[in-house]
């Protein structure tokens, strides 16, 4: 059967890209999944053209949460803040591939939630964004 644990996911789990911290990051957010204890922290450096100059993540938890966080950092690097804001659940899930149960979706989307929390804090949050965040 098709397992969610593809070679790609396992590779990102074992050899995470962009793991670490950015001391001069303008965007900094962290959240955890109380169910699993997964923790993800995201830091982004934004340049004068409002694009993501550098990005790092840190965290601990299951392969899904950590691999998705690492993949997400690769996706946002070099993009504008507005593009980052528009990244959807589906974008993240297509990176991961495979079928996830409802509970494991929370693991997969934790990094996106953290990223969006950081971005919305940076550009100024609205009620609509709170709703979007709570749906992740």
């Amino acid at each position, binding site marked *: 059967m098709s397992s969610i*644990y593809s070679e790609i996911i396992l590779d990102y789990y074992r050899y995470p890209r962009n793991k670490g911290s950015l001391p001069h990051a303008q965007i900094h957010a962290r959240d955890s999944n109380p169910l*699993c*204890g997964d923790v993800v922290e995201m830091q982004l450096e934004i340049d004068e053209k409002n694009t993501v100059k550098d990005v790092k993540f840190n965290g601990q*938890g299951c392969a899904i949460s950590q691999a998705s966080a690492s993949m997400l950092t690769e996706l946002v690097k070099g993009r504008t803040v507005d593009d980052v804001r528009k990244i959807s659940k589906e974008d993240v899930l297509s990176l991961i591939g495979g079928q996830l149960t409802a509970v494991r979706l929370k693991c997969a989307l934790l990094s996106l939630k953290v990223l969006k929390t950081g971005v919305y804090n940076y550009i100024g949050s609205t009620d609509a964004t709170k709703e979007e965040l709570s749906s992740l």
Partner: protein
Amino acid sequence: MLKRRWAAASSSTSLKATSPAVADTVSYRKARNRLPGLAVPKSTTPTTKPPLTFPGQLAQSTVRGQATQKQATAYIHGKKPYDVEKVRRDFPILNRLINGKPLTYLDSAATSQKPREVIDELTRFYSEYNANVHRGVYKISEEATAAYEEARAKIARLINANSPNEIIFVRGTTEAINLVAKSWGTANVGIGDGIILTEMEHHSNIVPWQLIAKERGAHLKYVGLTDDGHLVHDDFHQHLESGGIKLVTMTHVSNVLGMINPVREYIREAHSKGCRVLVDAAQSVPHMPVDVQDLDCDFLAFSGHKMCGPTGIGVLYAKKSILEEMPPYHGGGEMIREVHLYESTWKDPPYKFEAGTTNIAGAIGLGKAVEYVSGLGLRNIQAHEQELTEYAHDRLGKIKGLRIYGPENPRTKAGVISFNLGDVHAHDMATLLDEDGIAVRSGHHCAQPLMDRLGVSSTTRASVYVYNTEDEIDRLVESVERAGRVFKV
């Protein structure tokens, strides 16, 4: 009137002393002193107090555990072989296929599956005699009341309570503990008083005490654990000696480690200092004979859904004298004797603590479940689980990189096996096992302080019950090995 009904129920039991179920009970009582976590019958209890040592609990209980095993096996072969295939046919859900594979249910410590007769009784209640209990004067209300009170009497017999009046129906273990914390705690715990807990408690036996300690200005003291999950008796002794302790509250069997705590000894020591003791029996009552009079606990809490019963129903046992002193928990209908505009008087226990319409169907279903597990025999269940646990320890222990938490000797524990394999996160393990139709739990198991003590964020937990087989353990082992290959451990 109701009292007469209970009296009739219990005397009819004693008349039926030759029935198989009762004979079972008699046999297990004879042999019970050989069980870990249980004790010698009262008649043989020495009148002079033996020194309260807790010498290498592991070594001691190993010896007792071996005796248990021999005794149990002999009993099974001599009397009533445990036919697990027959038991499995009682559980309709076990016919389900998950991902094309048979459901291998190894999460009974979270909730057990339900036998056909419990499911049928719930249907029968709703389709034949659904009515509110106690105050209706019509036929089906009488029937519902009789079934509800008979369930209470069955539970009283199961744990050997003095009277059904010591059995309070609650939603589950969590509500039972909250009831004690709120009602007894508010009346008895004051500024500077202490409550002793252990580091292996479930959140449901920590958080209610944190709340009441904060409210009353009391403090919590924890009994620590050894690396293999035994309570550090010196901690307990020190806390007791420090004075001002009002309550000791501890789990009988750890929901993570399967560790069977020597609660009877702890209770005796606590009583010698005048403390009350609550036993969280959520993981013991479904799996082994538990006798509240023998333990001499003041409170005992357990859930119905972990012992073949429905969800939303559980039990608080408390000694009658304590219940009589306790203020009500919830106010409302059913719990009152007289209500006036500015004051009211209460019914006697247990009704004082059962405000509003209770979970009648749940209680009746639990009564059926108690009948079911008693029919299998708690000693037989314990012996069956013991064999499976030993087998699982043996097989899992041979997997490279796999670590089992808690006692190394499976004979000192109940059928709960927590493990991790290499750096595979428990949630990934559980997802991979699910692909093979195997249901296990992963995470912190509502015991974060214990996880901190073990130095892990989560574990995978397999737990067994009446319907599990060695084949299922084989399937678990194969699937764990597959997970190891996927993650290249």
